[in-house]
């Protein structure tokens, strides 16, 4: 890899791109690009992806296309000490995949119990109603991380991927103002 190519790749890393495997090679893509290209997830199962994207869309419409599932999945595939997840900063015990799996399973189990269907199969109105319920207190049938905390983290993830990027700042009309785009040492 030439030094120019490496600098470009690292600058993209600085601006919110992560390493995904495409055709056997590691390339830097934003989560949005990875989602648009339909890349398979490495860690989360298809059902978990469906639940996560449905939750993300309910919490912040547009989070799915912003690559929420690809962002989370990519972060779950790296060493916890390298992870950029909000869950890390909030003291969730690694491996973080356990937290997401347990939370998404609790979401679906509780949704089935209360509404007769998994979360993604509910109507948008029912999903919002259920989120409003579990963000405040533990619903019956929820056995996973405390639902208010799971709400807080999942919502934070959706906001990260939609608004926490250069594109996200542009949507809000805020200048990004990176002080220096540093080259990250691997």
């Amino acid at each position, binding site marked *: 890899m030439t030094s120019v190519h490496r600098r470009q790749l690292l600058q993209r890393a600085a601006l919110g791109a992560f390493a995904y495997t495409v055709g056997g090679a590691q390339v830097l893509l934003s989560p949005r690009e990875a989602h648009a290209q339909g890349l398979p997830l490495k860690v989360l199962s298809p059902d978990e992806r469906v639940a996560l994207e449905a939750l993300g869309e309910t919490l912040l419409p547009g989070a799915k296309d912003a690559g929420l599932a690809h962002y989370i999945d990519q972060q779950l595939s790296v060493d*916890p000490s390298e992870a950029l997840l909000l869950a890390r900063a909030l003291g969730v015990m690694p491996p973080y995949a356990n937290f997401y799996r347990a939370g998404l399973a609790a979401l679906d189990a509780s949704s089935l119990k209360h509404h007769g269907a998994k979360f993604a199969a509910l109507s948008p109105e029912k999903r919002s109603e259920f989120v409003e319920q579990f963000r405040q207190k533990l619903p019956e049938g929820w056995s996973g991380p405390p639902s208010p905390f799971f709400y807080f983290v999942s919502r934070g993830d959706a906001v990260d991927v939609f608004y926490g990027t250069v594109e996200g700042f542009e949507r809000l009309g805020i200048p990004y103002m990176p002080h220096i785009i540093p080259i990250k040492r691997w």
Partner: protein
Amino acid sequence: MANEKVDVVIVGGGASGILLAAKLGQAGKKVVILEMGPPLGLDDLVSSQIWSRRLKWGGVPVVSEGKNPVAHNYQSGWGLGGAAMHQFANWPRFHAEDFRVKSQYGRGLDWPISYDEVRPYYDRIQKEVGLSGDHVAEVWRPAGDPYPMPPIKWFRQADLLAEGFKKVGMRIAPMPVAINSVPYNGRPACIYDGWCEAGCPTGALVNPQVTYLPVARKAGAEIRTDAYVTRVLMDAKGDRATGVEYYDKGKQRQVQLADVVVLSAFSASNPRILLNSSSDRHPKGLANSSGLVGQYVTAHITFSAFAMFEENTENHMGTSGAFGMSQDGYVKDSHPGFGSYTWTIGVAMKPNDVLGFANSRPQLFGNALHDFMKRASRGLARIGVQAEELPNAENRVVLSDRKDAYGFPLARVIHGLDENSMQLFNHIRSEGDRIVKATRAKETWTNPNPGLAHFLGGTVMGKSAKDSVADSYGRTHDVGNLFITGGGLFPTIAGVHPTFTLHALTLRTAEYMAKNWGGIAV
């Protein structure tokens, strides 16, 4: 494998460890710093709240429990420079009464030193690293040299919030910050992009990498990163420390021998190392004849109030710290709930992350959240508080049943706010509500529940081994060549941010160690 013996081994490459290494190195001592995290550099400080999480704890898990668990990971650091790499650089001083809470008020603990004894070190540190502020406007400030730089620039958010404080009759002043308002000592002035929490690579903000790390390196200090210290090692009699045991990046056990051992790791790690260093001679853990290793963990009680203005508050401009402050509530017994507190007036905000716009209204989701984000990006303003929690022996670090890969118990931090803390929080909340309602904002709201910031105590200093772990220099009472530096030494937390005081105390320790080396190392 045993490494060649050095004068001092310092466990922890954060603010206090690096400062100590710089001063002892300059005094001719051979120093090794063992930092558990990676070799962070300025070019790792990516302008992104997402990437900023790399600066937060990434080591062996710390179990955090209790009614109000401390936010260990969020407060701690990871990598060379430690927590100071993501600090907000609010640097007010402790007040005189913060050092004598027990003797003056009959509550809490006393420090074994007074403000007057620490004052010269505050003055020297602020001259060495540079502070910006207004010592005249800061009417509550204890005696001390004027700040070397004028205050940092205020943006519209601060002006609008200041109106609220003035209308309710409260005095305000610029917040003293460890951020250059003008070029200082070869480091540039701040450009007010609000990325402080993501780490400042420009040199404007005082982080260890732009202040004392170059000094330490030039003085010959050796820094080893990815070095996980598990225990302090003792001589056969169990009287003196001989060095530390650590595991390197290749997971190989290493020993670093030293004449003096200094624990400068974070407030959960130092007690954990001491407790895990237990032996037949020290069955309760090292330096723990008092039984107090791990006890008196304290955190600042935090509160935020928000105002949504119809005009542009320029809230993306500024620093992660604060433009202004008020300490009209600092007198500890002048209001319901005992304790001091400092208002922070206006902070630069980003859309995401723990302190971003989105979390100012955590109950919003869906399209309502999108609508809010658009308004907040233009008109949101914030005031906050750092309030004093009294030391409580029930708030503590103990060893967990869970173990690391080498069989050592993890740290378990148990913390809860007591009735006094809640009374103080409720008083502050009421005051904050009045302040924001007194501004021009049409929409105001407050956080209903207290948060926590910082994480201090756990190895408190005091006059004797009966009531403390170490003396005022951080020298443990039980082991003459074993020191502790950093916030873990603080018996009380005061109503201000700790980093300036941490620096002042460490400088004092470095001077003491250099002057008294013969009596310490032998």
